[in-house]
């Protein structure tokens, strides 16, 4: 089921953005989700994640952070090889290998990072990590640069610092 389809029938756009802003500012704000008590917890989390992603996306792609994100993308591209640059252009993500051999997929438009495993014909996500700037002021592509540098220099420290947000 598309979890974003049903709740849209009950929640106005203003309410949706109010919830999104509240959760974006504080992802653990339970009070913000109580107003939407007709949603199950899992459903609310999916909705919140979807809204937070959209806010993040517009902030850095269309909003005032656009130039900062562009600069950060240029820096990221300068650290990638040709194949990775092509992957970034076509799939908006890039695969890198840590210095201990683990494989990761980086998403510079959201700052997300996943551990991946080769399964039969392609890489599949195994874990989603949560690791970011505490003040959340740097563009997502700069977070990706930081992830890349940490993975290439000290993968163990990366794994020690990052929280696993989700497993598959």
């Amino acid at each position, binding site marked *: 089921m598309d979890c974003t389809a049903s709740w849209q029938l009950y929640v106005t756009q203003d309410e949706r953005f109010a919830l999104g802003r509240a959760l974006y500012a504080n992802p653990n704000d339970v009070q913000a989700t109580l107003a939407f008590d007709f949603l199950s917890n899992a459903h609310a989390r999916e909705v919140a994640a979807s809204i937070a992603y959209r806010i993040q996306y517009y902030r850095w792609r269309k909003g005032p952070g656009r130039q900062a994100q562009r600069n950060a993308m240029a820096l990221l591209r300068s650290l990638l*090889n040709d194949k990775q640059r092509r992957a970034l252009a076509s799939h908006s993500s890039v695969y890198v290998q840590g210095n201990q051999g683990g494989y990761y997929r980086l998403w510079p438009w959201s700052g997300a990072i996943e551990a991946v495993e080769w399964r039969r014909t392609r890489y599949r996500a195994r874990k989603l990590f949560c690791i970011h700037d505490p003040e959340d002021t740097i563009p997502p592509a*700069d977070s990706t640069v930081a992830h890349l540098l940490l993975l290439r220099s000290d993968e163990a420290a990366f794994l020690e610092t990052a929280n696993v947000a989700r497993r598959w």
Partner: protein
Amino acid sequence: MDTLEVLSGHGHLTLTWNPEDAVEVANIRAEVAKLKVAGYQFFLVDDSPADEVVAGHGSLIVKRIEDPTETVTEVPPIRGRRSVAVRPLQGG
């Protein structure tokens, strides 16, 4: 010219300096010391293997710098090296 990329909220700032100019080196050392106090982590990126990567060989070599004030402003500078200062990261 040597460069230090500082990842900040405005995209990255690129600081450049002439390693043979004592005043510029002193300024950049002061800047690096401030960033270190603010908790920034420093990485040295070796660009020369990146050329090999473009040709399909090698990989990006990155080293974490524990003593940035000296290493970033190393004299004589090593060509093709870049430094990147990253804000401290934490798990969410």
